[in-house]
């Protein structure tokens, strides 16, 4: 019998889920510790929401096992639901109530007294910048306002594990910054956060671990840094004064690397690896007698990782 460590809050082993002939999840294994942020990435239909719904006990797996806070999701859902918060991909709010009314109602259902519920609602309404709309019916809210209220609702009970399915979809940059700040603070306080996202910089910024799903399977996993070093590389971009220099640079660099050129800007970009990468690049240009006006380097991003995984087909499938 597999015995997870004490601080493993989410433990998923060989999880599978099929809807008739559609296999939404196949042999998914992952875990997350207390105070960590796990980002689940993947294309549309990769199985992200299916995974979240199973872990939040809204849906049942068809094979494998999963525990949340040490409880099995199929048998002890009622225990799990006491300790989790969830904001699904589609918001779950009562349109006929005000924003504040929604939060008060949900807090009361969780066990807050009337007074506690009001205080907590006001606290979260201020935090998610809904003060002006607090007493308006949710039916009159904009998409981003609904999303923010839904996120506020997910943390009402101060859960140990928080599931956020594409939390920043539809948020303006300011609200997204506030959300990131809030998630970081929750994690620092020991909350485990599992979030799905299409924004790779979000995963990069927040996640201690990343799992990439492709067609229901785990196709890559690791810390953002690990993923970037195995599936992406640093690049150097050199700018030239004229087209002739640029053409010669492409010819010279093409011998060693795979340069991409931006003719309009007269720039050439090549991957640079190892400690001496940039020096080698400059030497090659110098040896060929090509003069450059500028040189910048860039770190790989999760975007690069994602693109690489996509171009090469999903490795595990």
């Amino acid at each position, binding site marked *: 019998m597999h015995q997870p460590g004490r601080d493993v809050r989410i433990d998923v082993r060989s999880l599978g889920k099929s809807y008739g002939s559609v296999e939404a999840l196949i042999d998914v294994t992952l875990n997350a510790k207390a105070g960590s942020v796990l980002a689940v990435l993947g294309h549309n239909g990769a199985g992200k929401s299916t995974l979240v719904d199973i872990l939040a006990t809204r849906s049942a797996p068809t094979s494998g096992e999963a525990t949340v806070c040490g409880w099995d999701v199929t048998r002890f859902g009622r225990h799990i639901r*006491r300790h989790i918060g969830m904001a699904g991909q589609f918001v779950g709010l009562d349109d006929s109530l005000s924003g504040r009314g929604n939060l008060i109602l949900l807090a009361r259902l969780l066990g807050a007294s009337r007074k506690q519920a009001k205080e907590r609602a006001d606290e979260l309404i201020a935090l998610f910048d809904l003060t002006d709309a607090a007493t308006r019916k949710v039916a009159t809210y904009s998409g981003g306002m609904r999303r923010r209220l839904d996120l506020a609702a997910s943390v009402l009970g101060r859960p140990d594990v928080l599931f956020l399915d594409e939390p920043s979809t539809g948020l303006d940059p300011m609200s997204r910054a506030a959300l990131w700040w809030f998630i970081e603070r929750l994690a620092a306080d020991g909350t485990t956060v599992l979030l799905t996202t299409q924004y790779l910089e979000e995963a990069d910024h927040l996640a201690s671990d990343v799992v990439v799903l492709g067609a229901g399977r785990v196709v890559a996993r690791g810390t953002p840094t690990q993923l970037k070093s195995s599936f992406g590389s640093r690049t150097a971009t050199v700018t030239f004064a004229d087209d002739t220099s640029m053409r010669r640079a492409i010819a010279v660099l093409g011998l060693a690397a795979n340069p991409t050129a931006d003719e309009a800007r007269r720039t050439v970009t090549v991957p640079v690896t190892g400690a001496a990468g940039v020096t080698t690049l400059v030497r090659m240009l110098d040896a060929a007698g090509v003069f450059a006006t500028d040189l910048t380097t860039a770190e790989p991003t999760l975007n690069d990782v994602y693109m690489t995984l996509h171009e090469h087909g999903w490795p595990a499938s």
Partner: protein
Amino acid sequence: MAGLMSRHALPARHDPRSYDPEATVTLYLRHNGYQPPQRQGPQWTGTRLSTQVAVLAGRSLRAAFSDYRLVFFGLLQPIVLLLLFSQVFSALGTLPGVAEYQSYLNFLMPATMVNIALATAMSSGVGLLAEVYTGFVGRLRAMPVNLLAVLMARTVSDAVRLAVQLAVAVLAAVYLLDFQPPNAMGTIAAMLLCVVFGWGLSWIFVALATWQHKPEIMHAASFVVMFPLMFSSSAYMPVNSMPGWLQAVSKANPVTYAIDATRALALGKPVGSALAMAVLLIAGAALLGGAISARNFRRTR
């Protein structure tokens, strides 16, 4: 330089305008005159079923009575029905089986009360479906909330709504239409019976809603159930005046018992076995509907 080596100061991202979240958010919160909340607080992990039902029923009731147009037409509906039926069928007042009640209106009023109960029970199912579609119940599925509480809250709040409707309809019948119940106590007992009847029956429609998820089908099915039940009962005509086969149907129709009991209570006649039968049927409907709903509703796909 060492002071700049914090995580946010590192030029890790390409975008030179990439922000420092801590600074941005603090600025934005200060702009709102907001003090960051305390990090720690009680963790809330759920409540008893009774609390859940009370909280959710309160929510439904507030919604039901918050729109005055909804309240107005809801209350007007039975009065219009009563007015129409009592005028169209007023000639039936002398029929044997009706004559003993002095007027057709007196005969009709208790049936209308049961009719209101039936209509409200039906709306429980339709209302529940509308609710399931909002996603609000989807959120409750991941919360420490017994989903039976959602169903119970629905039936309880609809029963309260029903009580208000019945009271208004009876008052309107007495003051506007010359309904003459012999005593107030009997009428109140009849209203109570109707509330309990409506509540029990609402479980059947709730069960229907948990089994059949399309509102259109719900409407059609409810319609098919409701009309034969009303017209094959003792609601509008005394059973004795019906064709033989319909009499048999009428005697098997649970609504007949509810109407007979209500009529006897409201008009001060001997109740006989109708009341016991009615209560038995209500309990049966509630138990059966409750069991089916409970089984269908939690089932995760």
